[in-house]
């Protein structure tokens, strides 16, 4: 931390009234009335044109000709643009990654000459209505010369594999390596070597609101750009760079967002195209994708292969770990995180809560003719913990130990925190052992094992229990992004706190919500730090036209970075209130106490002023002069860049029943003990956990994007890409341990991703446990009924 950073003790939160309370959400009233304003609800100005994209039906092909004449002839079609047309308006978009052994690539926002995945845009039709734009797109006649494609992770680096991108030799985007000094010796000396290959199939986030944007030219050179995005400042800078327009002439506004989950933290070609065409046509342009486009073009994730081996002693202690990680990056490096987020993430996070001191990895990102992959809730962690937690279970089975005991023996105990792991990541506080022990108690783990010992098959169902104990990366600062090559991603966020002339408080924060309840939780933080009544605090976010720059909302950042920035800004505003109040009350500033919207002299509650009294002086709205040296108004801006990462932790325990006949899985119990440091709003934290678990259960049991060998996506509707429904999910048994961070302002840790990170491994391990007596090896996902019933039959069950 830099020297000018106040230590957490300086902050007021210790006397918190609102932080820690399940304050009801302010967001709800409007949303429940059907008055949420999502992108497609934003009123469109007259003259708005609508755009539709012509998508490549081939995974890899050369574009030999594009005939737009029929489309142009359709009444209502305004213009049709090809890749070459757009290339004159938008530079090829490039994710900036600075890693050794990384091959950069760029993407034309609309394909020029060659297409590299099914769904890549080859032309854009602009028309008077969305219906007409789509009609026009149907009429664009594109001829292709179909080329050989490489689709699967396994084939990408074959010697005869077609080259996906000219600047990515051998289809290897990135090949990272790391080893401590004595891995080979540890393996040579180990009593046991436990190894497994884990395969994770491809999924995507599927927020129920599709992506979209609306670009509105205003006042000559300014463009107001509405987008269903999580990263408005990052988007604005990228629009400025790749469209070559002044950033000061761009304003990005985020409406209500109907779920993001990371996929809306990518920057997409359609956003650049929409903005460019609005500037070109001098009229508003709107685009909203349909679900087919969403499944084809939203970034995908989790197409990973992990080969892991552990050197283990007779007590089940892991002496050394080797991981060989391959991730499918797809056809292009998506912006802004590139195609290495899963690769570097898995490699750096797999050691989790365990005391693994000897570690070696190779981590490779490959290119294929498939949709680009990037961030989806949990990034890498659901898979790397499926691997390491799967290894823990295999160690237990090999040595005839209980899987919980193997974990407990390997965990870093709380007494040894702060602790720096083998790749240099600091765990400041946490509760690895305690969360596992408490979860075991809540899930009646020992009782379950005792019952299970009598036989796993009861009433035609195999019953199993699965554990995932994990660390959860959150609140990453600039050093953390740099360590992963993301040198253009800042890390900090900002807060601007204004006490208005009437004493009410407006706080701006550089985040954008997509369901997290920021208007409520950030108000709790500001109210406590400033000493204002909660109802007097209003939060404004999601608009580059108000409030300073930030890194925005993804990777479980908002509580840590937004909360931290708002605390710092609130503290500054409170100090100014106190200085002015001290002058008005003829007291020493050190003696001024702030509470519930009033400032009073310590020990003399009768000598007090309201925020409004002080604000009147600050804004020269009374006859009292400002104290010497003070500026007008009460506005304070501050920034907060957290440390490398902020590490939360949790344990999940899933209990399952696998039908011996049809292989269907029922989740019979689900327990979570979560530790995200100081909790701002327990109700909202529980909501984040439950929603994440639901996505994780979906990923473990049913969700899968399936390509055929030619690169056609066979799961391009929600009838094919299965999402968990109410009948597929259990109730959740959730408890919290609070180990406030000692490295972050406020003590908060992130919570957005833990649910999915824990659920995938816990469910996969529970099914593996249920079928363990049959000798069935469960090392993949999703675990659909057809797969499981086949495995059970083969095993003679």
């Amino acid at each position, binding site marked *: 931390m830099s020297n000018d950073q106040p230590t957490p003790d300086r902050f007021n939160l210790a006397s918190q009234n609102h932080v820690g309370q399940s304050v*009801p*959400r302010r*967001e*709800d*009233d409007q*949303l*429940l*009335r*059907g*008055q*949420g*304003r*999502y992108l*497609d*609800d934003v009123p469109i100005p007259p003259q708005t044109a609508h755009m539709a994209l012509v998508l490549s039906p081939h995974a890899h092909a050369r574009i030999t000709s594009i005939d737009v004449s029929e489309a142009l002839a359709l*009444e209502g079609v305004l213009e049709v643009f090809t890749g070459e047309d757009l290339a004159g308006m938008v530079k090829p978009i490039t994710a900036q990654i600075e890693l050794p052994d990384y091959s950069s690539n760029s993407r034309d926002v609309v394909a020029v000459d060659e297409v590299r995945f099914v769904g890549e845009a080859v032309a854009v039709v602009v028309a008077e209505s969305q*219906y007409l734009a789509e009609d026009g797109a149907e009429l664009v006649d594109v001829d292709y010369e179909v080329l050989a494609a490489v689709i699967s992770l396994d084939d990408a680096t074959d010697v005869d594999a077609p080259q996906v991108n000219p600047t990515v030799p051998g289809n290897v985007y990135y090949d990272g390596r790391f080893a401590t000094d004595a891995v080979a010796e540890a393996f040579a000396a180990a009593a046991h070597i436990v190894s497994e290959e884990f395969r994770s199939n491809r999924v995507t*986030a*599927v*927020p*129920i*609101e*599709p992506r979209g944007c609306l670009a509105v030219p205003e006042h000559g050179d300014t463009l107001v750009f509405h987008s269903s995005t999580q990263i408005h400042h990052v988007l604005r800078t990228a629009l400025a760079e790749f469209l070559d327009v002044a950033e000061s002439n761009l304003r990005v506004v985020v409406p*209500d*967002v*109907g*779920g993001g*989950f990371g996929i809306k933290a990518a920057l997409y070609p359609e956003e650049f195209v929409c903005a460019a065409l609005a500037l070109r046509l001098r009229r508003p342009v709107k685009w*909203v994708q*349909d*679900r087919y486009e969403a499944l084809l073009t939203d970034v995908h994730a989790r197409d990973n292969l992990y080969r892991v081996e552990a050197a283990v002693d007779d007590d089940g202690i892991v002496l050394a770990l080797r991981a060989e990680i391959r991730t499918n990056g797809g056809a292009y490096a998506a912006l802004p995180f590139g195609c290495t987020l899963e690769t570097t993430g898995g490699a750096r996070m797999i050691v989790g809560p365990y005391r693994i001191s000897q570690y070696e990895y190779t981590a490779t990102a490959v290119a294929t003719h498939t949709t680009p992959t990037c961030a989806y809730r949990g990034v890498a962690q659901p898979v790397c913990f499926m691997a390491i937690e799967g290894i823990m279970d295999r160690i237990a089975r090999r040595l005839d130990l209980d899987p919980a005991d193997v974990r407990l023996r390997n965990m870093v105990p709380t007494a040894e925190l702060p602790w720096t792991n083998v790749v240099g990541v600091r765990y400041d506080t946490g509760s690895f052992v305690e969360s596992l022990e408490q979860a075991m108690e809540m899930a009646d783990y020992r009782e379950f094992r005792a019952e299970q010992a009598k036989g796993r098959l009861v009433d035609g169902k195999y019953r199993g229990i699965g554990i995932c104990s994990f660390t959860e990366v959150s609140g990453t600062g600039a050093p953390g992004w740099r360590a992963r090559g993301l040198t253009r991603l800042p890390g900090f966020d900002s807060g601007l706190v204004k006490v208005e002339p009437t004493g009410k408080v407006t706080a701006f924060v550089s985040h954008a919500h*997509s*369901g*997290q*309840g920021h208007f409520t939780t950030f108000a709790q933080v500001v109210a406590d730090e400033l000493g204002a009544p909660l109802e007097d605090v209003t939060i404004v976010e999601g608009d580059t036209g108000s409030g300073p720059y930030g890194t925005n909302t993804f990777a479980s950042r908002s509580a840590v970075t937004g909360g931290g920035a708002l605390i710092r800004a609130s503290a500054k505003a409170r100090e100014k209130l106190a200085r002015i109040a001290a002058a008005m009350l003829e007291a020493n500033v050190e003696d001024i106490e702030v509470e519930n919207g009033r400032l009073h002299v310590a020990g003399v509650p009768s000598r007090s002023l309201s925020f409004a009294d002080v604000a009147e002086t600050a804004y020269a709205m009374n006859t009292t002069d400002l104290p010497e040296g003070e500026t007008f108004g009460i506005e304070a801006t501050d920034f907060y860049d957290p440390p490398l990462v902020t590490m939360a932790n949790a344990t999940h325990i899933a209990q399952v029943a696998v039908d011996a006949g049809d292989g269907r899985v029922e989740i019979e119990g689900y327990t979570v003990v979560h530790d995200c440091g100081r909790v701002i709003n327990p*109700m*909202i934290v*529980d*909501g984040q956990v*439950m*929603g*994440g*678990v*639901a*996505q994780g259960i979906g990923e473990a049991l049913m969700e899968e994007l399936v390509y055929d060998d030619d690169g056609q996506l066979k799961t391009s*509707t*929600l*009838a094919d890409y299965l*999402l968990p*429904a*109410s*009948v597929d*999910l259990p*109730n*959740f048994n959730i408890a919290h341990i609070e180990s406030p961070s000692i490295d972050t302002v406020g003590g908060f840790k992130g919570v957005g991703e833990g*649910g999915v990170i824990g659920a995938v491994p816990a469910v996969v391990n529970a099914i593996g446990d249920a079928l363990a007596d049959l000798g069935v090896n469960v090392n993949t996902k999703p675990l659909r009924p057809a797969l499981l019933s086949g495995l059970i039959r083969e095993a003679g069950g």
Partner: protein
Amino acid sequence: MTEMHDIEVTVNGRRRQGRVESRRLLIDFLRHDLGLTGAHIGCEQGVCGACTVLLDGRTARSCLHFAVAVDGAEIRTVEDLATPDQLHPIQEMFHQKHALQCGFCTPGFLLTTVEFLEREPDPDEEDIREALMNNVCRCTGYANIVEAVAASAVELRRRGEA
């Protein structure tokens, strides 16, 4: 030029007229022609349920109906549930139980619940989960929605008895 049709429907108790192409979807008619943006488009494939409205008292996927085909029908959308001063009891329970996050799917769940509790005023958890199974929520994991529906049933029964 595409053939246009004059239609007249009752929406939230008001007679509304429109002139639509044969292919205009009911959801687009409601959202873009009448300005009732509470029903949302999630998939246009009839799977997600975000576009759910009540069509002659029964839940319907407004993305799967043509506007022209509902000429003469009575339609109820989420905008009809609350008064300016007060949420509907089901909306109030969704708020109290934190049964929404991003809120995009919520109107569909609310109208599904309205119809369900009219049909089944005293449901158990299994009934509720079955009634909700055709609406997708990606944020909440459903547990709080199930609780909200159960609490709504209690509240509506209480009011009915009062």
